């Protein structure tokens, strides 16, 4: 049996420690542990690295505490647009998607691009149509929008409004 390893990240940021209260920290750690386990279990049973990384990332996409899938950042227009990629080190094949809305798990769409599409990268409506053709699960826009992200978006809009107010008579 060969060595097997999985490593995950859920984002890096320079921040004031007080912005992450203990209960939030505990939730993040629980989310990381859950995602790690989803990938590790596959490796432990002899599954592929490709299946393991997809499973780990899917778990974080489903968890609103991480900036991917549900819980993704808002655009200035107030929408959630996601992107994802996956790459197989054995074959050097890859799949990537960007500007995706409504697709529950963008990483699985990226994998579908890798395995079932003649191209390696699809974006926007094309990616969306490919997801529909492949029968991947979709969600309504409100599924992706969480209250903390909405609050951050509102703050940005307010800052912009203040900036614009200074520029007009």
């Amino acid at each position, binding site marked *: 049996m*060969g060595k097997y390893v999985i490593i995950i*990240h859920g984002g890096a940021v320079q921040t004031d420690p007080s912005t992450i209260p203990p209960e939030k920290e505990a939730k993040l*750690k629980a989310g990381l542990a859950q995602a790690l386990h989803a990938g590790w279990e596959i490796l432990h049973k002899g599954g592929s690295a490709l299946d393991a990384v997809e499973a780990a990332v899917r778990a974080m996409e489903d968890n609103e505490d991480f900036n991917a899938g549900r819980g993704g950042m808002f655009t200035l227009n107030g929408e959630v647009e996601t992107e994802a990629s996956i790459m197989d080190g054995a074959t050097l094949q890859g799949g990537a998607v960007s500007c995706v809305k409504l697709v529950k798990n963008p990483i699985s769409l990226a994998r579908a691009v890798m395995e079932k599409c003649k191209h390696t990268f699809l974006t926007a409506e094309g990616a969306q149509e490919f997801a529909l053709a492949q029968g991947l699960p979709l969600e309504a826009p409100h599924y992706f929008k969480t209250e903390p992200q909405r609050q951050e978006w509102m703050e940005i809009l307010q800052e912009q409004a203040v900036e614009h107010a200074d520029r007009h008579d």
Partner: protein
Amino acid sequence: TVGAVALDQEGNLAVATSTGGIEGKLKGRVGDSCIYGGGTYANNEVCAASCTGDGEIIMLGALAHEVYALCKYKDLPIAEAVREAISMYADKLEGDRGIIALDPQGNFALESNTNVMRRAYRINDEEPFVDIW
């Protein structure tokens, strides 16, 4: 952003990276997470790497591929390669950077220039490691 790199029992490496992007981005903005060689890269011969942080600088620095290149052509161990990629062009490309990377022998690195990097790993059936700070 979230990401994962893995080495399976057959010795194969893989990477996956996914994100909702940056706060207040313009509609249509593309970040590093979907860019091969930018925020994501895997090659069984050398390493698998997934990045997080400021997407614009990660793309411009081609950081995931930089880790690959430093290992392959400079023969650096994975930890040194990741450290060098994190600090590369820091004077010209300022911003948050975090990288996880793994080589075919199971050596790995988790580095960032930030005080928070949500991260976890597990080797074989050893105890898992999970941390944020």
